[in-house]
């Protein structure tokens, strides 16, 4: 018994030491391992709207066109043979018809050949499915001119014919009919929600059969009921080998790929929540790239065997939004609810001088240095660097306590300065950047007048969301990540009266709404630029919010990894990126 135990212990140690001996060599040379924290929601392209799912889908499925290397404004054909343009005649001069000739000789992972019908089916299926909180509004807007298949009460408001007519097969091509010109349409089609799936595979697995009479049954399914939740059949360079939801996903090379097969045999994305464990796996070579939270970047500085790419501009930004019409009902964040020094009235921020006072009180430089360790830039408005029509010359607010004081003295007819105010700014606990931003507002504003009092308070994410959407927050700090690289995707949520943020702020400007409409329907880039420059200027003048940061990201990889490149619009771009381009050795 004792002998057996000793033999067992020695055996385990020997095996362990044999691994120890391997240290320093390229581990698992044909397998790429990414260790991260994000859970994949679904493998269904029509469902997935999170970056973790997007990264997985992009590995298995393909779109008609794809981003050209690091560029976010030009494309290469993938399942189409050409990128449509007015010049090559594949986009009609009025910008309403897009024709995609479909590539021949492409096979799905189940061996079925790709046909134009698969492309038509994939887009129509996405529109049929259209789940709440999903990405398919991006197809609805250009194709049907509405944001989805249901109204606010959940009733279906479209006919199947609307979807059917929007996408058609013509010979070897697929034609999209747009309701109105929509310049970012190609960008939308280059993303995972427009991935092409095999119709036969979907139908065999209980999905929508492509018929008119049953389409409503497949609309807005419950979580997990979407056909492609955990199965996949694309044309991509990797096939799905296994997905253990919440644990890891494994892809294996598609040796029958229409281009040259990938250099890697396998790709594994696994969830490793604990930072130290993740770091040790990275250092031991058991992970080739990892997610590194900003607060830990110093721990990997100067470590041998690791390559770091810095200052990678992301297509995201964080801002502070002022609430013009705070919901006073049972609201603990506005004190007395009056301008009496013990609270604020619900329309406190409707006074522009209050907003300007806040805007000039914020020390942007200190914030970027302290909260982002200098790895972020100040946005010039909703249209951030990296987007078309970004205007680097646009004026921005800066820290100027004198100007802040000036505006606060003018606010509310001078009453504010005399009486003072008290309000609460919330941030979601654990979010160091938002906490720092809230502290800067508090410290700098309280320093101007002892009657100004700001309390900052951490709350759980769920509480934060509740208070934002119910309009209870005085001002809220939150970020936005690009769906597609076009200014429309930012000016709409930031400025339109129905936009995500502006609606919660009760910010309305009919001129803005008109400019946004004209901007998205205009195909001439010169004219579009004019609209977006005006919108940027209005945002500066109206000051419904202030841009705080546009993060600059990092990418960490083992030095044996080759072929990585950064395209900010790719899901989880700072991690594995596009696995097809990677190799090890």
């Amino acid at each position: 018994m004792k002998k057996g135990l000793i033999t067992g212990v020695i055996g385990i140690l020997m095996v362990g030491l044999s691994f120890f001996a391997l240290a320093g060599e390229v581990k698992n040379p044909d397998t790429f391992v990414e260790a991260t924290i994000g859970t994949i929601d679904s493998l269904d392209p029509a469902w997935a709207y999170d970056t973790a799912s997007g990264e997985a889908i992009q590995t298995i499925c393909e779109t008609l066109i794809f981003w050209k290397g690091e560029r976010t404004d030009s494309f290469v054909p993938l399942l189409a043979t050409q990128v449509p343009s007015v010049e090559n005649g594949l986009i009609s001069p009025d910008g309403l018809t897009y024709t995609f000739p479909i590539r021949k000789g492409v096979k799905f992972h189940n061996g079925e050949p790709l046909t134009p019908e698969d492309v038509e089916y994939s887009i129509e299926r996405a529109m049929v499915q259209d789940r709440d909180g999903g990405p398919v509004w991006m197809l609805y807007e250009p194709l049907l001119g509405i944001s989805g298949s249901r109204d606010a009460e959940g009733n279906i408001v479209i006919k199947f014919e609307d979807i059917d007519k929007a996408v058609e097969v013509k010979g070897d091509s697929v034609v999209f009919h747009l309701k109105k010109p929509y310049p970012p349409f190609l960008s939308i089609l280059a993303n995972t929600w427009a991935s092409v799936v095999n119709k036969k595979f979907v139908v065999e697995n209980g999905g929508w059969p492509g018929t008119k009479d049953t389409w409503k049954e497949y609309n807005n399914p419950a979580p997990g009921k979407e056909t492609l939740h955990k199965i996949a059949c694309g044309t991509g360079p990797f096939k799905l080998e296994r997905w253990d939801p919440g644990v890891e996903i494994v892809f294996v090379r598609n040796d029958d790929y229409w281009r040259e097969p990938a250099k890697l045999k396998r790709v594994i994305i696994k969830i490793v929540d604990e930072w130290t464990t993740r770091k040790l796996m990275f250092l031991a070579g058991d992970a080739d790239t990892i997610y590194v939270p900003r607060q830990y970047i110093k721990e990997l500085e100067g470590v041998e065997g690791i390559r770091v790419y810095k200052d990678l501009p992301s297509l995201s930004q964080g801002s502070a939004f002022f609430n013009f019409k705070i919901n006073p009902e049972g609201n603990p964040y506005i004190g007395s609810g009056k301008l009496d020094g013990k609270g604020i009235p619900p329309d406190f921020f409707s006074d522009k001088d209050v907003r300007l006072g806040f805007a000039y009180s914020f020390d942007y430089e200190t914030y970027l240095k302290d909260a982002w360790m200098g790895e972020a830039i100040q946005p010039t408005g909703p249209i951030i660097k990296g987007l078309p029509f970004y205007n680097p010359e646009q004026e921005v607010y800066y820290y100027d306590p004198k100007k802040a004081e000036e505006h606060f003295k003018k606010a509310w007819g001078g009453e504010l300065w005399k009486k003072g105010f008290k309000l609460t700014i919330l941030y979601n606990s654990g979010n160091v950047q938002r906490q720092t931003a809230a502290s800067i507002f508090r410290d700098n504003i309280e320093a101007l007048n002892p009657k100004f009092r700001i309390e900052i308070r951490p709350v759980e994410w769920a509480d934060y969301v509740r208070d934002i959407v119910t309009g209870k927050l005085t001002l809220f700090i939150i970020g936005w990540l690009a769906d597609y690289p076009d200014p429309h995707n930012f000016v709409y949520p930031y400025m339109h009266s129905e936009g995500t943020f502006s609606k919660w702020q009760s910010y309305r400007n009919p001129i803005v709404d008109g400019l946004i409409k004209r901007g998205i329907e205009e195909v001439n880039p010169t004219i579009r630029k004019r609209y977006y420059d005006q919108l940027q200027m209005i945002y500066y003048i109206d000051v419904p919010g202030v841009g705080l940061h546009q993060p600059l990201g990092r990418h960490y990889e083992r030095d044996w990894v080759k072929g990585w490149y950064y395209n900010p619009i790719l899901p989880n771009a700072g991690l594995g990126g596009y696995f097809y381009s990677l190799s090890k050795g």
Partner: protein
Amino acid sequence: MKSYIIRRVLLVIPVLFGVSIIIFAILSLFSPEQRAATFITDVRQLRDIQGVIRKHHLDAPIYMQYFSWIKEVLKGNLGWSKTASRPVLEAFFYFLPNTVELSLFSAPFIILIGIYLGSTAAVHQDKSVDHITRAIAIIGWSLPTFWFGLLLLMIFYGYFKGLFPPESLGLNSSLYVNSKDFMRFTRINTIDALLNREWWIFVDALRHLVLPVITLTVVQCALVMRIMRSSMLEVLGRGYVITARAKGADEKTVIKKHVRRNAMIPVITVSGYLFAGLMNGVVITETIFNRKGLGWWWWRAAVQLDIPAILGAVLFNGVLFVLTNLVIDLLYAYIDPRIRLG
């Protein structure tokens, strides 16, 4: 005895019913928006939060939500776990084997080492062995699991690169056990490896168990040790022990037959709850060593307000603790024939 067991098992039903009502009462404190936030995986989805509320009936009266949940539970559907991206029941059976494996390997070490150290300390009361053992126990009990686990990982995985790694299996083993060539009988890696006669998998799985088992043993066995020691000291002072010694029984027999066995009852109680606790998932150990078990899942569910998963956890715990109490009672009767059940 049979009727006693049946009665105790049936007790599970009212316990579960009561607990589920309490949980739903707590749920009523959360607004629909708060609960909808669970389904928001990306800030861009916030634009459609009202649709999410409507879809999941989060704005329905809480009693309606309870009845529809009960209805589904009776059909065997415990709902959808957002954090596990799969149905609760499926997720439960997916994560259970990892927790069972860790518990099966840790519990014997914790209990046996605890009993051994406890009885040794008691027999050598107030001698250096006793002092050292107690000091070790106190240090072990005081060690934060988080800190100790990470320390072990840094030494045996970080410093000795890859000697005892985190997770449940290495890359090649993991790929192999998930291939068609490997039969999954129990989904417990060590047991399945033995059943498949794949010794290299077995050794690899053991290698991945070393550090979490050491962590749990060092931290947890102090409790068993302390209980065992006090219980032994109490029994050592009893009349029948003095009588046994007076009759000339040798010390080994006295300790083994008369003292240790009688001192076991409180240890059984503690061990039962300890095992139930392990089965409930050891959140920190599972997180540090990246072993995806029940504790890891439920921790994520609690943090992200994954209500169906939390309710599933409550149901499981209700069953587990009722059964644990039953087993403890049965063991009492076995250890001490004077105890009669019924």
